[in-house]
């Protein structure tokens, strides 16, 4: 049985790894955006994500109490030790898929951070308040694009629907609750994901309806992020993200 502090460490890893991997994915667009403004937007969002990840991972290191820094946690853990949501590691593919992924996760974070602001843990509550301000921009930005894709041309709509086929099955993973979630919800530290799911569904339905698209039918939902069971994509991301730090440990510039 884990004690509260061990559960909290696990929880902070989840809170840090999700924006870390999403931020890394978005950074792949740097210099490749469809237009200059979007290039800047995606890298700005990436920067917000990396900033949030740094704060949550630093706190995770403090909770663990083994002197591990944000960098130790980001660069020297293996794939199975990562706790990011599966949807964040899915490939960018085209701009429609990147924006749909952003929308689904930003809608989640919008409600999640609003709830986490009420956490009994003062650090988590402060970081949630900070992150929420940033996520509101990401949510608005990606919502606008969804409406344009849905109501745009046949091409834009087709691309959006293809992205939906690829990504929808990873949305269930966001709401899985294990013993860590349940224990910390009881301690009034964590956000109750059942509650977030209802709010998320409502926000997603609203924007989908403005975009003129239906909610996808029930599909088999992938899960596993809570236990570090990832899709094949995460290993490739880590190989790129961690190679420098592992080849030259302690490098600075």
């Amino acid at each position: 049985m884990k004690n509260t502090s061990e559960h909290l460490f696990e929880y902070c890893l989840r809170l840090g790894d999700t924006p870390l991997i999403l931020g890394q994915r978005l950074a792949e667009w740097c210099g490749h955006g469809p237009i200059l403004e979007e290039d800047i937007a995606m890298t700005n969002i990436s920067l917000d994500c990396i900033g949030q990840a740094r704060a949550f991972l630093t706190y995770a290191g403090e909770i663990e109490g083994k002197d591990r820094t944000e960098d130790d946690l980001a660069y020297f853990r293996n794939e199975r030790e990562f706790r990011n949501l599966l949807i964040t590691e899915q490939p960018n593919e085209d701009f429609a898929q990147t924006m749909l992924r952003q929308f689904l996760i930003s809608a989640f974070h919008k409600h999640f951070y609003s709830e986490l602001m009420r956490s009994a843990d003062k650090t988590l509550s402060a970081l949630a308040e900070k992150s929420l301000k940033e996520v509101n921009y990401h949510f608005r930005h990606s919502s606008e694009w969804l409406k344009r894709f849905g109501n745009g041309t046949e091409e834009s709509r087709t691309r959006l629907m293809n992205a939906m086929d690829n990504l929808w099955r990873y949305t269930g993973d966001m709401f899985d609750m294990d013993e860590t979630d349940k224990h910390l919800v009881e301690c009034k530290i964590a956000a109750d994901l059942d509650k977030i799911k209802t709010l998320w569904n409502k926000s997603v339905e609203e924007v989908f309806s403005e975009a003129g698209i239906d909610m996808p039918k029930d599909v088999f939902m992938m899960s596993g992020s809570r236990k570090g069971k990832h899709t094949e994509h995460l290993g490739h991301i880590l190989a790129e993200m961690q190679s420098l730090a592992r080849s030259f440990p302690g490098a600075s510039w």
Partner: protein
Amino acid sequence: MKSKEEIWSILETIPDPEIQVISIVELGIARDVQIEGDKVVVCITPTYSGCPAMDAITHDIREKFAEEGIKNTEIKMIYSPVWTTDWIGEEAKKKLKAYGIAPPDKTSTDKSLITGKKKIIPCPRCGSDKTILVSQFGSTACKALYKCEECLEPFDYFKCH
């Protein structure tokens, strides 16, 4: 040993690395100063979580303090209370505008989200209200990109946050 007031005056001479016309005090990044024996503790808070200027700011504070003969400095990053553009005073807003950056409104007066009406951001160069949003995300995390349809110049708007 310097007094708290003297430390604040030193901090007021340190410009923001990305917006050099206002200081880290005017921007609301330097939050608190404590003197513990011979050590000076400065608490700073980021504008946005990922603001890349925080490392530069930490470096600038240490460098300036060293010049002033303060050897023992600790810089603490704090996240609460959460940074807001409401901490930027009227004087600093004037400096931003003169520099070509449209200053932020008060967050409490930003009703655009509730009313659905588009927010009017006057052009910092010619003062025209005929401006359009080009992108929510500008040259730095804290700014959005606008364009003036009167004088045709693009400009940065310091986002209400």
